[in-house]
């Protein structure tokens, strides 16, 4: 009974709303950073993913790009990442640094427009050229770094790693555009692989914070009396091995040492899931713990399989297995952040239901279909198409479940 009475309590994650700016007439969808982004990101992911699926299975042709594969990878990495960072930072920073004024209203709208311009300039790159796309996309990331400066300037340096990683990503993105514009001689695909490593590092660093909030919120909600601590050393080990793997892959893509590094990266990412094993309570049966740990499992599987492919001298399979990291871990990380923020920061309790199970399950299925293509070569075309469609479905479900929340004021009446 006691548990029931505690339900209407103010959520843990509301302290920072005390510093909400008093701008007048802010529509609900601009009331907090994540709202417009998720409203745009879900349909964008659905449409672009299905389009890419048609392209890869040969159903559709896009004549307006001369280097489809490279641009596909670019957009799936940087286009989506900037949206993800924007949502994460605008929601997370006010929480990590009390007193930080949230980005809302007109200012938020302008930033979102900048992101949209980046997408438009990307899809019309053959018309507008590389420089325009480079300008808008780099401006977006540059703005985000500027926005995150308190994290880097913080005396205690608690979250500075996020800032430094973003600066590294900015440099890599600039390098990529330079290569595409012919200013640098590096193979753009190599730069993108390096970029993926840096993105995964950023995701691991961000996920550590998301995990702490989500899992503790969940345990408080369910009356589980224990504390979840995501220990930095485990994440740091994973960051180190992934960083090493990415750099060595960039320099010596087929070296056998890289194979061992891939296996090491896989093991170190899997090691992070040890945090979920608490001292007193068992939480591995909680749906959100399972969802979140699946992100690590998929990323780990990706690195380990890539390592195995290299040691087995089957380099051609590496890019298939990489989809465990991209479609799998990366995609699921975005989905989880969208779901968790979608519940908690619209003033609701972190809830799991048939929809959340379905969303996570479909991502995992789509990843397995895409990543295991080397074992089912004869069905490759079907698997390309089906996996991209199945991957897109969770974001359709997301729109159905969460768009109502994102368009309406917070359920608990707090501003934001």
């Amino acid at each position, binding site marked *: 009974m006691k548990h029931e009475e505690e339900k209407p309590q103010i959520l843990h994650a509301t302290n920072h709303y005390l510093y909400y700016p008093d701008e007048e007439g802010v529509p609900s969808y601009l009331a907090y950073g994540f709202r417009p982004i998720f409203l745009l990101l879900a349909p964008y992911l659905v449409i672009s993913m299905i389009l890419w699926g048609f392209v890869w299975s040969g159903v559709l042709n896009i004549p307006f790009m001369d280097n489809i594969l490279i641009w596909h990878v670019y957009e799936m990495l940087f286009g989506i990442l900037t949206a993800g960072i924007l949502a994460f930072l605008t929601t997370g920073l006010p929480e990590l640094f009390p007193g930080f004024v949230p980005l809302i209203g007109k200012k938020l709208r302008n930033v979102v427009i900048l992101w949209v311009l980046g997408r438009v300039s990307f899809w019309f790159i053959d018309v507008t050229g590389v420089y325009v796309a480079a300008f808008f996309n780099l401006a977006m990331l540059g703005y985000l770094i500027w926005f995150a400066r308190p994290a880097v300037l913080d005396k205690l340096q608690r979250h500075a790693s996020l800032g430094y990683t973003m600066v590294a990503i900015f440099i890599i993105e600039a390098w990529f555009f330079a290569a595409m514009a012919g200013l640098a001689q590096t193979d753009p695909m190599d730069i993108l692989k390096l970029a993926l490593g840096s993105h995964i590092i950023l995701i691991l660093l961000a996920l550590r914070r998301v995990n702490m909030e989500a899992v503790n919120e969940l345990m408080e909600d369910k009356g589980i009396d224990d504390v979840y601590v995501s220990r930095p050393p*485990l994440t740091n080990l994973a960051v180190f091995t992934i960083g090493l793997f990415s750099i060595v892959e960039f320099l010596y893509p087929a070296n056998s*040492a*890289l194979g061992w*590094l891939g296996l090491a990266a896989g*093991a170190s990412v899997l090691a992070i899931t*040890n945090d979920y*094993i608490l001292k007193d309570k068992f939480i591995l049966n909680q749906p959100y713990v399972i969802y979140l740990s699946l992100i690590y499992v998929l990323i780990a599987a990706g690195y380990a399989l890539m390592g195995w492919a290299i*040691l087995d001298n089957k380099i051609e399979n590496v890019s298939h297995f990489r989809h465990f990291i991209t479609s799998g871990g990366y995609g699921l990380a975005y989905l989880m952040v969208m779901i968790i923020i979608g519940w908690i920061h619209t003033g609701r309790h972190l809830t799991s239901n048939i929809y959340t199970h379905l969303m996570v399950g479909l991502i995992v299925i789509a990843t397995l279909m895409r990543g295991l293509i080397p074992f089912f070569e004869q069905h490759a075309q079907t698997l390309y198409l089906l996996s991209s469609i199945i991957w897109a479905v969770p974001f359709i479900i997301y729109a159905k479940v969460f768009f109502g929340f994102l368009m309406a004021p917070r359920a608990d009446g707090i501003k934001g």
Partner: protein
Amino acid sequence: MKFALKILKDFPSYLWSGWGAVASILLFIALWDVGNQVYGDLVLPSPLETFKTLVLMLHDDAVIAEIETTLYRASMGFGFSLILGSALGLLAGFFATASMMSRPIVTILVGMPPIAWIVLAMIWFGMGDETVIFTVIVASFPIIFVGALQGTRTLDGELKEMAESFNFPWHMRFFDVYFPHIFSYVFPAWVSGLGMAWKIVIMAELLATSNGIGASLAVARSQLDTPTALSIVVIMIASLMFIEYIILEPIKREVELWRD
């Protein structure tokens, strides 16, 4: 019984906590691979080649026979040290004079390099099982002896008094008061003694016998067969790590909790 169940219950999470260690071992193997690329196959065979040789070796009956010989010697030597070391150590711990007297002797035993023991043992016993077993005993006995001695020396006098004033029957007094405390000291000493025994047995075999994996290592050295030499090293390390970290460490952790 409850104790065994708790170890079994914690075992999966213990095993899962090893991923970090696996990662750092794999990083080390990557470094080994780099070493192979820099110095060539003769100096340092690649890890992959070593593991392939290893698999071949483990399917070879002759190699299995060598491993069995070594296992026999190590377990004989370790078994003697375990029984002798624990018994004498526990006994010495009960008497202040005996423990005072035995310490310098243990210091001498520990301080004497095993290689010197091997030379002496070769003179005394010739080239055979006895030399190896003797060397293993002198190397691991002091470790176990000191552990057992500390176990009885550090027994809490107040606990003893309490047990007496409650008039515990002797079996309760032993199993619930003395045993857990003593065991929490003796068991870790066994673990380190075993590690020592396993290392010494190879060294003694390499110098003093014509069979066992230590001797195979000597043969591999004389034939410049680095893949085989490394495979033997991998067998040694892997078996020790398996026994120590998969079997004994979970028990040791549980046992050490009893100290406080």
